[in-house]
């Protein structure tokens, strides 16, 4: 299992901090510039490799660059420096239910959302029952999703995303959806994914969850990679650093 699923090499991502941003044409012309900005590196020279078949966690305080890194991994952002390569199909699960059309039924939305996530119609059709079953939406599947309870809405979104069946799944804090029952189902699903040899990269603030699920973690702070290693010791180090600050 030494094969690498995702390799991140010297990745840097720059954002512009705008002191003045002229998003209207008048302002741009009057001030004779579109913006005044300074560069802010949300990620700085981050490198690591995720072995195939493992679960990998990203930890760090708010604003440490975890989500930016996830967005780079799922091709929503493009890194300004460095490269990210992956072997196998990668799916991002950053938000559930985005792209649902409220007036369309759950059934129609499954096909729509599936294709946004990159599934072919046949694949969705083959997995349809499984998706409905997992979501627990049941008889409401032919109702417009605007009538769904917020729980049903996210559960359906999550079920579609989890059934995309990627080789690599990138997850951002979405494990906290649904009720206890559903969370238990999700946990089981992640265990299944792992036994099936899939790679999972996740961001979470719940250290208990990370400790339980992840083989390895990377600790980010202000865009820099502080430490990387087996989950137990690295999480301890991270928690100790937090205590150090608060004391």
């Amino acid at each position, binding site marked *: 299992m030494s094969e690498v699923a995702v390799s991140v090499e010297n990745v840097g991502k720059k*954002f512009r901090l705008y002191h003045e941003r002229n*998003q*209207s*044409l*008048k302002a*741009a012309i009057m001030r004779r510039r579109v913006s005044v900005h300074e560069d802010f590196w949300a990620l700085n020279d981050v490198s690591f490799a995720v072995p195939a078949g493992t679960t990998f966690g990203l930890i760090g305080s708010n604003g440490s660059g975890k989500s930016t890194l996830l*967005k780079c991994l*799922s*091709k*929503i*952002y*493009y890194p300004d420096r460095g490269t990210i390569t992956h072997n196998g199909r990668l799916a*991002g699960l*950053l*938000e559930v239910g*985005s*792209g649902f*059309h409220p*007036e*369309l039924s759950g059934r*129609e939305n499954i*096909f*729509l959302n599936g*294709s*946004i*996530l*990159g599934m*072919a*119609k046949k694949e969705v059709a083959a997995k349809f029952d499984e998706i409905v079953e997992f979501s627990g939406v049941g008889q409401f599947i032919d109702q*417009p999703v605007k009538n769904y309870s917020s729980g049903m809405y996210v559960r359906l979104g999550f079920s579609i995303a989890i059934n995309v069946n990627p080789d690599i799944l990138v997850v951002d804090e979405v494990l906290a959806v649904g009720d206890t029952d559903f969370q238990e189902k999700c946990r089981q699903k992640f265990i299944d994914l792992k036994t099936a040899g899939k790679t999972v990269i996740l961001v979470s603030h719940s250290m208990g969850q990370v400790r339980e699920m992840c083989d390895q973690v990377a600790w980010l702070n202000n865009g820099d990679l502080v430490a990387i290693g087996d989950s137990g010791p690295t999480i301890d180090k991270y928690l100790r650093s937090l205590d150090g600050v608060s004391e």
Partner: protein
Amino acid sequence: MSILKEILSSRELLLNLTLREIKGQYKRTVFGQLWSLVNPLASMLVYTIVFAFIIRVQPDPGKPSGLNIFVLWLLCALLPWTFFATVLNKGMASLVTNAGLVQKVYFSRITLPLSTVGSVGFNWLFEMAVLLIVLMLCGAFVLPWIPLLIVQMILLAAFATGLALLLSIANVHFRDTQYFVTILLQIWMYLTPIIYPINLVEAQSGSTGGLLGTNITVLDIYNLNPMVPFVNVFRQLLYDNRWPNPADFLLCVVWSIAALVVGLWVFRRSEKKLAELL
């Protein structure tokens, strides 16, 4: 070329997004798809009252079809124009309205503006089919011209797509674009021979002569408007039932290819930055 491959590989998504627009559009309305006919009918009514009864604009009868019905003459140009204007408006807004999706999921971005072309085009097909039936009932012999009409519709769709791609990116950078385009489209419509025949412009231009001592006439400048040849060809096919003027047709081809190439190029250049810019 890579962009064509990308579009081809995400054709299923494109279809689904288009269907989402079409299905979502008239949900919870009693008349459903019929609503798409109401808009052109309403503007038709207004323009006919003002221009045919009050101002008494009289277009030449169709040659050789012999049609002499203002309403039909108007619709042959008005329907393509409405399609064009709607694609520009909706395509331009497509990226901004779907910002949430663009920032959370990776998928081929170009499917968003393209799917609006698809859904607006679907309505247009419906309208054109109704127009064709009415034309035939009124004695126009349009059947043999349908293949060429389809080519011309594709050309206009390509022209509109190119501009919509360009505008969608411009709108991400400057939200002024949407307000500007609304005004521009209004002016543009009156600069195109849709509600009045082009020979009124020719007559005016002839009496004014060369501008500022040059050989350039008002008509020359007027003809720079790319929608003029498009509208001309639509009328020649639908209302006159004859071969389109080769110069007009060639201009349509050139304009649509140019718009599409520039639009795709600009979109390609900016699409990677979209999630940050929105």
